[in-house]
């Protein structure tokens, strides 16, 4: 059915394929048989309340916490779909530094708080062997502007930044290598509403312009509506409903999704 995706650049295979991944902590099943595919440029929101397994899912897919069962395959450049847990640690690290990004809820977990903003942005490039100081600084300046941070702050450490600025710096640090897949764990929670709107708009623009595939974990249905093409609803470690974002929010089928949607004001 690929001809239906009437687009000159329609990709022919998924970027990511997750098959039956499971995770237990002792007797507790934290994640029960999750399977999905993600295609280039697709934004998938994973929603559900705390403890529903959404962060467990994110960490298992992002090769941060090995699942007890199932497979996670990623379309490695020039090599096709590869099992990420069959890769060597060096290969995983390279992937995490180049084609993947990970945006943490708390910017302090994703930034080096005691080095300059410019060095935070340049670090992934240096890890890839870029050494030309002038070019690294120019790239960092460009990225600070793209995430709306005054380039005059390039030599300041993130400790001197507001929460919203730190989060934007974390995004720049991840996107500088032009990744194809970015994981985001509640990137807007903990920010003031006005700061959230700015970050959301920025994320929306960047994901579209860069054709990024994104898996974003959020408990905020309005965030899902604005950013995501697709949604996955989790409850007690299970995916209870998934589909087109509008469909899940406008015509929820599962009792839990109905409860979730009816509990908020106009998602």
């Amino acid at each position, binding site marked *: *059915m690929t*001809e*239906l*995706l*009437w*687009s000159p*650049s*329609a990709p022919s295979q998924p970027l990511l394929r997750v098959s039956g991944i499971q995770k237990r902590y002792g007797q507790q099943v934290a994640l029960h048989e999750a399977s999905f595919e993600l*295609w280039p440029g*697709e934004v998938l929101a994973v929603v559900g309340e705390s403890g529903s397994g959404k962060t467990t899912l994110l960490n298992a897919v992002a090769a941060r916490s090995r699942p007890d069962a199932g497979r996670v395959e990623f379309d490695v450049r020039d090599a096709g779909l590869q099992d990420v847990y069959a890769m060597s640690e060096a290969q995983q690290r390279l992937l995490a530094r180049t084609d993947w990004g990970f945006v943490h809820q708390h910017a302090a977990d994703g930034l080096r708080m005691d080095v300059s903003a410019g060095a935070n942005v340049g670090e992934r490039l240096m890890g890839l062997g870029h050494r030309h100081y002038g070019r690294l600084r120019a790239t960092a300046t460009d990225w600070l502007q793209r995430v709306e941070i005054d380039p005059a702050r390039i030599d300041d450490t993130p400790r001197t930044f507001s929460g919203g600025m730190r989060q934007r710096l974390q995004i720049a640090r991840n996107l500088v290598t032009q990744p194809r897949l970015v994981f985001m764990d509640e990137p807007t929670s903990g920010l003031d509403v006005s700061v959230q*709107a*700015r970050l*959301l*708009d920025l994320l*929306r623009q960047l994901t*579209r*312009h860069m054709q990024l595939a994104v898996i974003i974990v959020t408990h905020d249905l309005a965030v899902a*509506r*604005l950013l995501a*093409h*697709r949604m996955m609803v989790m409850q007690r470690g299970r995916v209870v409903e998934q*589909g*087109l*974002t*509008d*469909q899940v929010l*406008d*015509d929820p*089928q*599962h*009792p839990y999704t*109905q*409860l979730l949607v*009816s509990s908020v004001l106009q998602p």
Partner: protein
Amino acid sequence: MSFAMTSPVLTLSGVAKRFTLHHQHGAVLPVFDRVDLTVAPGECVVLDGPSGMGKSTLLKLIHANYRASAGHIVVRTAGGAELDVTQATPRELVALRRHTIGYVSQFLRVIPRVSALDVVAEPLAEDAGGEPLAMESAREQARAWLARLRIPERLWPLPPATFSGGEQQRVNIARNLIKPKPLLLLDEPTASLDAANTQTVIDLIREARERGAALVGIFHDAQVGEAVATRRVPVASFRSAA
């Protein structure tokens, strides 16, 4: 006329819709029992009936905001293939909306911080892929649409969040008609417009018909419906027998 011009753009067959409310003791609200409807290029089907009869629900089923409980909704895509929206993957539906189905809802879903000009240009800008000439062409067309729908030029650089209801509705119309798509769904597009803008929307609908688009619309104003319809369909005929 070629086959492509006359074969239907939209075919609903045996479509049923009921809502199950799990938190209202599993109450089931039946809306449609059986919808059979085909719409050909150049047709404008106007849905008739009092409010609460499911006119908007029918548009939302076609646009896949709602899932059909039974039946098939087949759309001939801009690429010429057929897609059953009741069976399609989210990825296929996203592509279908981008290239094939335009949907003018009653309210603009506002995007924070994006200017009216860029809100309107976005469907074309998405296809431009960042190419500067194509981006400028998208903005140029957006300016023409905003001017035609009488949005004052001083508002173009501002986000529509603070605009009046009528202004937002006109931005919404421009955004959803700027890219000529084969199938247009219109949910009361003239509800808060003055006479001059209502006439402009009537002209736009006729132009879409003339270029071969298929349209399905709901109009609160009987005169507007009269002016654009090639066929009228009472939704009561699709209702579950009470």
